[in-house]
């Protein structure tokens, strides 16, 4: 794992830390970032603050809405409910790192095509859950999609279009 001196410098300059700051390395979207964080810093805070990855949203900060969903290896987690210091060497994937290169992930394309986005605040988390579902099960049915997003809250009411978008992908993908 390689340290990213730039990220390190940025974080040290940008924040005032408590007495017990801990030095950690986070592997985010394929890059290693060295950080100094207070033990109480959540993964969501670390991503949004020192790492500047604001695509991950905090809405409830309590594990109730899934707006902050990211992947730890292949697992979807609520990053507001994970401490940055407990991530260890697991690979973190955020919405910014979901698509490879310039293009979009198929789930992102489908969300656009089916208008599964309104205010968009819940959307990054919703996209991460749907992409994880499809990685595990390329042909989910409606009930499986509902289960996959059952922890997400969307006040704008995008659920029907989210389900439609993922169903369309499930049906389009060949084996």
């Amino acid at each position, binding site marked *: 794992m390689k340290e990213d001196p730039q990220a390190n410098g940025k974080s040290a300059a940008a*924040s*005032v830390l*408590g007495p017990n700051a801990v030095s950690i390395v986070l592997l985010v979207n394929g890059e290693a970032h060295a950080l100094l964080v*207070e033990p*109480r810093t959540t993964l969501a805070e670390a991503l*949004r603050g020192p790492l*500047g*990855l*604001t*695509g*991950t*949203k*905090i*809405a*409830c*900060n*309590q*594990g*109730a*809405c899934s*707006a902050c969903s990211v992947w730890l290896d292949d697992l979807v987690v609520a990053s507001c409910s994970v401490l940055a210091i407990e991530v260890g060497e697991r690979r973190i994937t*955020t*919405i*910014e790192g*979901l*698509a490879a290169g310039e293009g*979009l992930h198929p*789930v*992102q394309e489908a*969300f*656009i*095509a089916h*208008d599964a*986005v*309104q*205010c*968009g*605040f*819940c*959307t*990054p988390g919703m*996209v991460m859950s749907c992409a994880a579902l499809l990685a595990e099960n390329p042909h989910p049915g409606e009930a499986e*999609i*509902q*289960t996959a*997003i*059952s*922890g*997400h*809250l*969307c*006040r*704008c*009411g*995008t*659920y*029907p*279009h*989210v*389900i439609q978008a993922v169903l369309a992908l499930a049906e389009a993908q060949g084996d």
Partner: protein
Amino acid sequence: MEDELPRRREKFPFGLAHLGLDEVEREIPADEPPPLAPNAELTQIGKDIRRWDARNKVTGAALYTVDVHLPGMLHAAVLRSPLPHARIRSLDLSPAAALPGVHAVLTVVEPPADGASMVLRYVGQPVAALAADTPALAEAALRLIRVEYEPLPFVVDLDGARRADAPIVYPDSEWQKSPSAGLPAAASDLPITGNIRGPESKGSRGDIGAGFAAAEIVVDGTYDTQVQTHCCLEPHAIVAAWHEDGLDVWMSTQFTAGVRAQLARHFQLPLSRVRVRAEAVGGGFGSKSQIGVYGRTAVALSRLAKAPVRLVHRRDEEQMDSGNRSSSEQHLRIGARRDGTLTAISLHSYGSAGIAFGAGVGNMVTALYRCPHVESRQYDVFTHAGPACAMRGPGNTQGAFALEQGIDELAEKLAMDPLALRDVIDPSPVRREERRMGAESIGWTRCQPPGADQGPVKRGMGMAQSLWSANVQTNAACELRLWRDGRVEVLSSVQDIGTGVGTVLAQVVAEELGLQPEDIQVRIGDTEFPSGPPSYGSRTTASITPPARTAAWQIKEALFRSVASAWQVDPQRLTVQDGWIHLRDAPQQRISWQEATATLRTDRISAVAGRSDDYAGFRSRSGDAAMALNDLGGVQFAEVAVDTETGVIRVERVVAVQDCGRPINPLQIESQVQGGVLMGVSYALLEERILDIHTGWMLNPNLVDYKLTGAWDTPQIEVILLENYQGFSATDAYGIAEPANIATAAAIANAVYNAIGVRMRSLPMTPAKVLHALGAVSGGPH
């Protein structure tokens, strides 16, 4: 002023498209475009064009206020009242101010004019605020502020607040300083006795006694609706940067231009020195309409600290102190003759907006149905609870829950079908057609008598109607810029809170200019651009699309003049299509868009257009707000399954038939209607702010215990859109947000009755209430 401008007469398409269109002649301002053809003849308008900002939103690139980070930015924290009613004996900010890293501390609660000590009136009311280097430091500094509270007697429930010996929220005339819940009907000069203010009786008419004397059938009932909170996923947020030249603000707001005006007034700055930006807004359902105490606090902290300040509500602050939908206790009586004609409607309602006023719910009973004698008496009951504010269809959503159940009850007594009764009493031809279409779609003929299903799970079907005025903001403008390199920009301060207004603007401009929506650069959410309308009152599309089209048309005319002078022809002979400008009568003479714009004399030309009056005039106007002659009717049908053993209601299907004039982007409208329906399902079954009557604290100030619909509670939703042309403006388009929410809970309640044969008159319809209503358990909730 407008009357003095030259006008011309034009013929507009008129009527419901699916029934065949007529024509209507209107007189329109000479500088506005000719009538827009019906959607069937257009290429961009009426099409499911992709949302303009969807890419940014699915990649996480969209910038919300909570994502704004300015150099040197400080973090605010707010000290809030732990008591529902208290006098502040002493307040010492100095220990907090002395903490290194704290840059500004101030008192938020305002002292009464007479110099008496400050009084707090709800748990969560801001007392003081500060700005510090980090959020953690700010929270820590709050704990250093020393406050001595003198607890005072309080009351947070509606019944308690109405008792003669109830603790009084506002002594004497102090209530006049209380916030209005933001409803236009909230009159300010009503009598007050104890905590009860009113009645407000707008829309009352006739002689109610005579009306009931003439009735052959009377139904009456009492309906309760709960307090609902907005629950925008992006909390209320502001980043304020006070600097020598003025004020720069980022805010998660439904009205950038309105916030600018409020800030300019409050801080005595010229409008031109205040800039408000909102790039992406994470939802707004009424509560983000004003600058608010929190917004002013952030600005004051920034001025004091001489640094940018970020203030973002935690979720508990969001739940306790960012507004809510007021409650109601509605006593409804309806009198009718045997043929269904209504003779009298009386609605006495007591509602609490907490320390605010404006809890009236009288609009539905006074305006929805034909009835000669109507008595509306709307009382505000002050309680020691956080102030309500407008929320998606304010008043009408609560009102529909009672009125539409009352009408169904009447239909049953008259042995009439609920749809047939509404055909008799509802004057709206649009809703009549909506009822027909909705009934067909849901299969209304399958509707059984109440409680007919035999097993423990009983299914039922119901419907309800909505009414919302077609609102227009006249202070709404849009600029079109055309660059010599062919680029087109549409600019307005109007904000996109998730409605897709940016897409709609691109469509309207592209249609007029013969381009593609993706060719149009949408630049909105910034008060440096012409003032756009608010995103509330379902008025955004109606207010901003006509000026956008007018400005585009004016730019097109200017470009035609430029090309025509190069070609030495009459500009009238030019037209544009698919990116080519050509002669109408000789299409082979043509020039591409880029070549055409290269003929411009200057690098950039611009046209700014404002919202003119509706071509047939307005029904009413006050200040910048006007009401169009039409209403936005909607009818919703619901199918439910009620488990009579557990009391759980499942909404299985909703058919929503809606009118928003000319639909510009049906897919986005469908999204918004689904959102309105889901918020209605949530209101009907799950949501309720619960206050502890012993402490005044909210017991569910989070998203764990305050329940919202999730994917599993989502019914199958079918959206049917009318295409309704009236020739009222350059686009003839209206809003949809609120109409889509108003009828849902009422339709579900009627369906529940149809399923179990027992009326649910209290929201939310929880399993406990259902079981109690069925007599399956004794005692009772609530």
